[in-house]
């Protein structure tokens, strides 16, 4: 049985010019990179282009990668920045609007709203979409989301609360 080569070792090989090593990293993490772009941008076609661009940026920037950090997080940060740049280019990266009053009386989301959730998330502010994706699709903790999205943990908490309250407001 052959041992799986660590991401970080593949990255070092790739940094030395081994394109095959980088392709293996793309096979391992490309889906996560694409999904983050998709959720942040809200458009699968644009996600294809931006994910590709992010991976090329990563490939070009491998000399700046430090093996002590997790490679997946590093790739995802590059993908997130590329997505934000794309949103800025079409002036869609807007600050969060003023929060309205939270309504604790709204019931939590239920199982029968699962189908409608994806579309409802796509209508949220991109920052909220990115936080939700990091939490539920990537399974990151609060501090990890903060690191990925260049936010403070307190902001992550606020965004998660707002996103959930907005979804409840739209669906229930």
């Amino acid at each position, binding site marked *: 049985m052959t041992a799986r080569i660590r991401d970080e070792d593949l990255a070092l090989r790739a*940094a*030395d*010019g*081994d*394109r095959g090593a*980088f*392709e293996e990293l*793309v*096979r391992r993490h*490309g*889906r996560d*990179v*694409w*999904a983050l772009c*998709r*959720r942040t941008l809200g458009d*699968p076609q644009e996600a*294809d282009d931006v*994910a*590709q661009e992010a*991976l*090329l940026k990563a*490939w*070009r920037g*491998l*000399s700046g990668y430090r093996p002590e950090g997790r490679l997946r997080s590093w790739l995802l940060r590059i993908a997130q920045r590329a997505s934000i740049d794309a949103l800025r280019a079409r002036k869609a990266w807007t600050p969060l609007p003023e929060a309205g009053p*939270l309504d*604790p009386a709204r*019931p*939590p*989301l*239920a*199982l029968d*709203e*699962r*189908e409608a*959730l*994806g579309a409802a*998330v796509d209508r949220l502010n991109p920052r909220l979409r990115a936080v*939700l*994706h990091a*939490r*539920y*699709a990537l*399974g990151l*903790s*609060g501090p990890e989301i903060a690191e990925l999205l260049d936010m403070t943990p307190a902001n992550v*908490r606020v965004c*998660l*609360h707002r996103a*959930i309250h907005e*979804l409840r407001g739209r669906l229930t």
Partner: protein
Amino acid sequence: MKGSDPTPADPGDELLLDELLLDWALGLLPAAEAEALEARLAADPALAARADALRAEQAVLGEALGAGEADPALEARLVAGLRAAPPLPVERAFRWRRWVAAAAGVLIAALAGARMLDRREPPRQQLIGHLRLSELKAMSDDEETP
């Protein structure tokens, strides 16, 4: 909110409690606060029911947002896009280094081979030398013979 009355009376407290419960469901509460809240949940069935609903909501969100979109060709498409990109300077250097390494290997092998052949030479040369010496000796013997 730590260790206080679990059934707040005014809407402000209700809101705070809702936020606290959501923090708990999201796993954002520090361990000590989470333990204190769980102790309250154990003692208050109505609060525990609210907490259960929030935990169920987390499961719904996880199920709805966690599943990636099924596109089996995605990785292949991303790799193909990467292959279509022009080679990077580091990659050209890598190829160049591979050629140099291969050439160095061939050179070392050639040198090693030549050295091995060289080591086999002395007996042949010695033999030739011996033959030449024998010839010279024979010639000098002939000359000395009257």
